[in-house]
């Protein structure tokens, strides 16, 4: 089985697509913020048009190397490409400033490679013993596991843990929109078909993650890369990894284990590895000043976690990290249902996934070393060329997801939420994971109770999970209790107002569903109530921090001080972001007027020429390329683009948005 899967992997029906996925993942990993999550979000709408095996190869291929390639911006520019490379910045960027960028990069890539293969190896062994574990995982255990995941996610993302949990609850409440899980009553749907199934995950992912990054790029008004240089001399880096092989092994193991805990995975594993290195290596004070070990530790962990995170994803259908939420969606899309079958009748598919992951990691890391120079050029494309192309791309991906132009509204709504959340330090991953898990929690709590009563809490697995949850809480309190440097704050009044505006949503939810059957409304009302309380507390703390006298009181009481720590965490100014965000509604208007393909051409030309009139050759060439791609895809996917008003006046070919 093991070997057969490896053989299958190198079949021409699989390998080229894996390679394609790797290239896509690498390319997007280099652009800050467009990491694995965005790669999958962009890929997902196309998945259903491919054979399941092909789709699988592309998804794994796209997912595996993003935590490798995001090292480029982390090291060269000091911008973490994805959450998994935040800690890499600490030592990698100082090394780049010293002219040791090549050494840092090659060490990071080799460490990633080893970590990734190690993660796959652990995964392939643990999967053999998974059947009894899965059989022991009934409704009750699954319910507790999801609670555990939420506990970790909500608290660990974001600098302020209260805002982190509140973000998660916002996601949970959004997740209850649609037909009630138990009775089938419509909740918060306003009689529309669109909202009966809730918001589409793909569109939420694009809105929450891709839109704010594009807006941020426009805000910076420069290139993604400020002008970093790559020097030759990567042999030193490779040697550094072999010298520190034990650190690589330790951090890889850590990565697998943390990755396997659902919900915790991606966002924190690099920090855990980094702090582990800091606690165990000699001369720990050197870390943070450009020490190669500070690069090796997080990089080996963040690739190993991809293997670990697949364990709960494949076996229980519970995503181990943000991008696994999308991978899971893709797996189900191609007819691969997570669960017991994955280690019984579908074991060959599971091994194919594992091997694909390992090989994608090797290829990805290898390519990174060789493609370093040409790939880095992409980050030097000026924002006025890159931004409009990316906007057309996410609109296209959104429309292709369900071929429903109403999704553009969802994209804009969640794009705006993403922009504000990012600017005001609310956690977007926590929101997305909360959203994804909401329906599972509601169903499982009911199912566990119906099948076991309360006795599910006394099963062995449940007791273990409860203990784990309690340990997590203790760990969190200790970690959050330690003082962290206060982040920059601006726009504090605006933040307070936003907290108030946010509270309107749970309040409206309660009003909208208050009259339904109790089985349909108890869960969302309880969540909304808890969210309201949290938002009230956050608003209260923010208000007290605004006023100098009450602020002193807050500082004197330890619990209040800890809770209000970084309560005004922010990134950039909201007004600037919002101004740039306006390009989305503008583009939407263009689409309504001209139809999607012509609007994309108009946007690209308009945007480029507005910034530099002499670049008409560039903008013309790019828009011609975009048109050719759109035309090809429209045929390949039988995709009729949203038609504009002008289609009623002039007759257009159908791929430009005309009628049949």
């Amino acid at each position: 089985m093991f070997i057969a899967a490896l053989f299958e992997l190198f079949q021409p029906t699989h390998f080229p697509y894996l390679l394609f996925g790797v290239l896509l993942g690498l390319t997007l990993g280099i652009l800050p913020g467009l990491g694995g999550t965005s790669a999958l979000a962009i890929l997902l709408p196309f998945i259903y048009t491919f054979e399941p095996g092909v789709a699988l190869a592309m998804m794994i291929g796209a997912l595996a190397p993003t935590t490798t390639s995001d090292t480029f911006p982390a090291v060269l520019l000091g911008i973490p490409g994805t959450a998994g490379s935040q800690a890499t910045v600490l030592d990698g960027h100082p090394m780049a400033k010293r002219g040791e960028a090549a050494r840092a990069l090659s060490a990071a890539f080799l460490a990633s490679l080893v970590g990734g293969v190690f993660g796959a190896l652990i995964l392939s062994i643990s999967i053999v013993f998974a059947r009894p574990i899965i059989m022991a995982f009934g409704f009750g255990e699954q319910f507790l596991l999801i609670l555990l995941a939420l506990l970790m996610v909500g608290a660990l993302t974001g600098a302020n843990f209260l805002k982190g949990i509140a973000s998660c609850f916002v996601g949970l409440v959004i997740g209850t929109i649609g037909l009630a899980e138990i009775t089938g009553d419509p909740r918060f749907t306003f009689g529309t078909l669109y909202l009966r199934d809730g918001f589409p995950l793909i569109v939420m992912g694009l809105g929450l993650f891709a839109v704010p990054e594009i807006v941020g790029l426009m805000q910076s008004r420069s290139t993604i890369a400020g002008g970093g240089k790559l020097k030759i001399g990567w042999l030193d880096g490779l040697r550094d990894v072999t010298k520190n092989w034990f650190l690589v092994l330790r951090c890889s193991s850590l990565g697998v284990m943390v990755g396997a805990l659902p919900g915790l995975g991606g966002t924190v594993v690099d920090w855990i590895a980094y702090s582990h290195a800091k606690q165990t290596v000699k001369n720990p004070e050197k870390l943070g000043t450009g020490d190669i070990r500070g690069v090796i530790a997080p990089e080996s962990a963040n690739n190993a976690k991809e293997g670990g995170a697949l364990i709960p994803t494949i076996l229980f259908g519970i995503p181990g990290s943000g991008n696994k939420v999308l991978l899971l969606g893709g797996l189900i899309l191609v007819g691969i249902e997570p669960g017991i079958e994955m280690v019984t009748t579908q074991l060959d598919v599971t091994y194919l996934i594992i091997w694909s992951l390992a090989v994608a990691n090797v290829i990805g890391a290898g390519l990174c070393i060789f493609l370093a120079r040409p790939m880095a050029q992409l980050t030097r494309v000026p924002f006025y060329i890159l931004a409009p192309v990316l906007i057309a791309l996410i609109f296209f991906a959104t429309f292709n997801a369900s071929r429903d132009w109403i999704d553009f509204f969802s994209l804009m709504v969640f794009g705006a939420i993403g922009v504000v959340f990012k600017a005001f330090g609310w956690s977007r991953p926590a929101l997305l994971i909360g959203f994804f898990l909401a329906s599972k929690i509601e169903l499982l709590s009911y199912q566990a109770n119906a099948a076991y009563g309360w006795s599910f809490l006394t099963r062995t697995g449940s007791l273990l999970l409860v203990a784990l949850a309690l340990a997590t809480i203790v760990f969190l309190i200790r970690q959050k209790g330690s003082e962290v440097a206060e982040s920059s704050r601006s726009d504090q009044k605006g933040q307070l107002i936003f907290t108030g505006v946010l509270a309107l949503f749970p309040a409206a939810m309660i009003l909208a569903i208050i009259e339904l059957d109790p089985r349909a409304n108890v869960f969302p009302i309880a969540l909304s109530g808890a969210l309201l309380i949290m938002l009230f507390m956050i608003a209260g703390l923010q208000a007290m921090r605004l006023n100098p006298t009450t602020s002193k009181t807050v500082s004197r009481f330890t619990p209040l001080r800890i809770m209000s720590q970084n309560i005004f965490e922010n990134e950039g100014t909201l007004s600037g972001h919002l101004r740039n965000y306006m390009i989305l509604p503008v583009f939407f208007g263009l689409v309504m007027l001209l139809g999607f393909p012509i609007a994309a051409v108009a946007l690209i030309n308009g945007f480029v020429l507005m910034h530099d009139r002499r670049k008409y050759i560039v903008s013309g060439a790019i828009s011609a390329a975009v048109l050719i791609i759109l035309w090809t895809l429209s045929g390949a996917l039988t995709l009729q683009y949203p038609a504009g008003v002008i289609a009623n006046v002039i007759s257009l070919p159908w791929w430009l948005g005309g009628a049949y």
Partner: protein
Amino acid sequence: MFKKPVRKLLGSALIAATMFGAASANAEVSFEGQTITVVIPFKEGGGTSRVFRFFQPYLSKYLPGNPVVQLQNIPGGGTIKGANFFHNNQNPDGTFLFATSSSVNIQQATGNDLAEFDLSEYRPVMSLATTTHWFTRSDLASGPNDISGLQARELSLFPLETASSADLFHLWIYDKLGINARPIPGLSTSAGFQSFLRGELQMASQGTSGFLSKVVPEIDAGNAVQFMTLGVLQADGSVAPPSYSSDAITFPEMYEKVNGMPLEGEDLEAFKVIAANWGPASKGLFLPTGTPQDVVDAWREAIRKMTEDPQFIADAPGNIGPFPVMIGEPVEEIFANAVNLSDASKSQFNAALKKYGMTFRIP
């Protein structure tokens, strides 16, 4: 190496080239160089997708001009989204079709306000029967066809995805078996089966393809026992078990065993609705309203040729079950029986919904 996508790309280039010279104008129907789109209102992985994925290469082979056939899955809204999409984008040139299952029928049968489609308007190409099988754990029955162990239990649990779907028929069926049953909601067929294997549920059911691929191995391993099959309506009105499971007891037989009297009257009428939906009307393929007769005939002819292909005959039982594919006009009547519910049947189903505490009602 890149066989399929490249073929698709070439296909698309050709479509664009021949777009305006639509096929319907030709005397001889040919789909050469075109792409056929079959709208499936379910996600990939589901039973309907599986059936048409199995048909896909044969359709491509036997349709005139060997077009590329692609499945477009538009899940959502309990099949309404995909069905409405088909209804509102009908293009009667023979390149745009709609694949259905009993879940589509039930949305029309229960008169959902959001459903804009109407199956009786479209031109039917074919239908395919399946049937349904119920099973329990082997430790709860002395052997096949025995429900005394379940009847003796204080409470037996079964999976139910949602009451506002064809699943509501389960409520009526269990109600007639004298088992004190309770539905566990939110469990798809596959999730329900996993839970059944874990020992949390005492009974579950699967359609033909799921039964053959997932349940039969568990029965052979001694973990599960089949206690009933819906049965297949015969031409003379009688009900027989399917050929691959000939020793199974059918619902009418079980009904008589449990209630001491034959299935008749309003109960029989309600059963016939279920038998139509989960039987001959469980899978269908439709062309849009107003599709020219020569195009409809070309499709029916392609299906007929497909069913005569030796490879198809060899592979079909393992993939879709041993049921005959029905072609052409008779399909219309089959679907009429499935979607038009009498008031008596509606109140029968509503009574079962009420008994199990469901808020959904058939209006």
